[in-house]
């Protein structure tokens, strides 16, 4: 088919080329909108010494948490690491390096990388441990720190629907970090619940244009809920 057709037919093909020591940017917030099958494929590949960039690190046994089981993550760049026991153990034993990064700065690091911007100034973190050792500059009487963008060797993202060209839309708050992650990978792999033909998505509604997507695969998703909160009808 067309040179714009991004569809691949197996998860092996989707993650081909991932090697030890690479940096992987992953979309998702908590367990919402995570590329769960692509993560499982990374586990299957057994690659080590990865730097993972994602807001959180999954939970024990699900999401990015599964990559801790065989100690595949060397460095984790995240804003909040939550209640993950294996994570805690590996962090305390020094096997896992954790670079805590404010959530907005993390989103901007991905966005900037995707937009070809190597670094940006932000007030977030100035005067805190996060700002230590970083260049400070004053604009209009306020102090800002210089934060560098983060590019991934791979970016793995989860969208709701995409056409074969990789034009994608997200569902509800499963969007979160996915659109920025999609722009920030040298190779961006997207998994979706449904692949449709070009022309089926309204161009006005497309949230990630296919230009950012290198490989596209349709999967089935468990979509585990981290905190199930309901009210009586």
């Amino acid at each position, binding site marked *: 088919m067309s040179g714009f057709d991004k569809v691949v037919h197996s998860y092996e093909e989707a993650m081909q080329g991932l090697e030890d020591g690479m940096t992987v940017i992953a979309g998702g917030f908590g*367990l*919402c909108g995570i590329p769960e099958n692509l993560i499982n494929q990374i586990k299957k590949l057994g690659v080590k010494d990865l730097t993972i960039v994602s807001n959180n690190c999954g939970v024990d046994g699900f999401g990015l948490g599964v990559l801790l089981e065989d100690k595949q993550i060397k460095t984790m760049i995240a804003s909040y690491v939550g209640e993950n026991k294996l994570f805690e153990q590996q962090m*305390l034993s020094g096997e896992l390096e954790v670079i805590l990064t404010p959530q907005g700065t993390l989103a901007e690091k991905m966005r900037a990388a995707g937009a070809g911007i190597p670094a940006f100034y932000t007030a977030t*973190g100035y005067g805190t441990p996060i700002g230590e050792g970083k260049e400070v500059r004053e604009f209009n009487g306020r102090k800002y720190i210089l934060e560098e963008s983060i590019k991934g060797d791979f970016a793995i993202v989860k969208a709701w629907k995409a056409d074969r060209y990789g034009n994608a839309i997200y569902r*509800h*708050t499963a*969007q979160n970090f*996915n659109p920025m992650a999609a722009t920030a990978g040298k190779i961006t792999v997207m998994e979706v619940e449904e692949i449709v033909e070009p022309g089926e998505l309204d161009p006005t509604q497309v949230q990630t244009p296919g230009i950012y997507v290198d490989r596209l695969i349709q999967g089935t998703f468990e979509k585990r809920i981290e905190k199930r909160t309901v009210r009586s009808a």
Partner: protein
Amino acid sequence: MTLSREQMAMRVARELKDGYYVNLGIGIPTLVANYIPEGIEVMFQSENGLLGMGPFPTEEQLDADLINAGKETVTTINGASIFSSADSFAMIRGGHVDFTVLGAFEVDVKGNIASWMIPGKLVKGMGGAMDLVAAAPNIIVMMTHADKYGNSKLLEQCSLPLTGAGCIKRVMTDLAFVEIDHEQGAFILKERAPGISVDEIVGKTGGKLIVPDNVPEMEF
């Protein structure tokens, strides 16, 4: 009597104004949503990418793709919008959110806040708190006046690593409503909890506290 968490939330909610976009931090601040004054409309922002957060879903409405920043399943109200994390923090960092309520371990007379890390204890991360405190023009910190050992949390200088420098102007505690004058380097006692004496508040405030001639009691 010291204020209950609900009373603290009630008092903070009186600062809400019609048309405010509001971000409530995880924990006690979320209680503020239960006490929106009658006749006004506010919209809640959740930093994972939702403006117009509604109540928890019913079993039928439950949707794994719709959560808040505390990772709880939620709903949307009519007029809600959903966007990426970059857009969400553009709203926050760009100063577009009208009102923010956050918890803290310590606040000091320079408006510094420490809320994310206790050295020696496991650090789970700052999430969006550093972005919120650095940017929000209108923040209220909600916390107990002293810790469980009686040590003041309103200090001359924060002892814990900061979440943000010089960004807090108002603090709601279980004893008092306090403003911070950064230039004078002092807390100013604005209101006290019913039945709580000025002396008790003075005794439990570590940093310099200015006590005006008249400090009204809050009414509930």
